[in-house]
């Protein structure tokens, strides 16, 4: 099985890469098709997943999960900013989960063919607010590395 995970994080965003043994078309469909999403989304600790999916630029999605066994309902929702079938998705991500909270964060996920498999490259950025205003031009400068060093030194 082709499995490689790397997690890079700075104080601003995280990037996770994983290669799975399935075609790009198959992975993209699993990622976006409501019927298939219901079968893997939210890991094994949730039951009763409801998916609302409008897979187009400006379209909204919503995933509602009931946690097992305490029955808490968690809602994840957002708006698609970029939809390139079998290649790339960019969308906002909001979550009212206590464990994994998020408000107006940004997800970019790419599906890249690697032989018989697919590399999934997922980036999660903590803020979309000014990012969208500035036209996605947030380049993290060298100054940010200093912040990360500072934080690491301070912990």
């Amino acid at each position: 099985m082709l499995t490689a995970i790397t997690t890079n994080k700075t104080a601003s965003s995280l990037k996770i890469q994983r290669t799975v043994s399935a075609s790009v078309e198959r992975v993209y469909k699993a990622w976006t098709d409501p019927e298939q999403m219901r079968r893997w989304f939210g890991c094994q600790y949730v039951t009763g997943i409801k998916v609302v999916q409008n897979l187009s630029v400006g379209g909204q999605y919503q995933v509602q999960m009931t946690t097992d066994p305490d029955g808490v309902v968690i809602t994840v929702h957002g708006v698609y900013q970029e939809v390139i079938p079998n290649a790339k998705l960019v969308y906002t991500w909001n979550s009212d989960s206590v464990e994994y909270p998020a408000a107006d964060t940004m997800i970019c996920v790419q599906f890249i063919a690697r032989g018989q498999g697919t590399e999934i490259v997922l980036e999660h950025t903590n803020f979309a607010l000014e990012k969208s205003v500035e036209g996605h031009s947030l380049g993290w400068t060298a100054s940010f590395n200093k912040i990360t060093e500072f934080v690491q030194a301070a912990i």
Partner: protein
Amino acid sequence: MVKHYSEQLDRTFFAISDPTRRAIIGNLAAKGTCSVLELAEPFKMSLPAISKHLKLLESANLITREVKGRVHYLKLRAEPMSEANDWLSGYSKFWINQLDSLERFLMEDSSGEENADSDHNK
């Protein structure tokens, strides 16, 4: 919108979403304590404009201010930034779990491979 998580985290991420404020934080991280004038120096901005950024950073608890006579000295606070790092660690775990789950689904449902282009998999 109701925010079910730490307001501090929200303020931290908002504060660091601006390039000028990130640069100010970077300079403070590199130099330690700085006066307002020292912090304003690298920017082509008026002092009031810099002051506004500093006030926002202050209200987000990212910096502290100490007044000595007429000079205001600023210093970085580490705690909110490490909270932001904790958020990222949590989400790394979340996404790794999600990808594990997706991968399990893809393996179990290998019949989907030939049906990938159809609208419904059975």
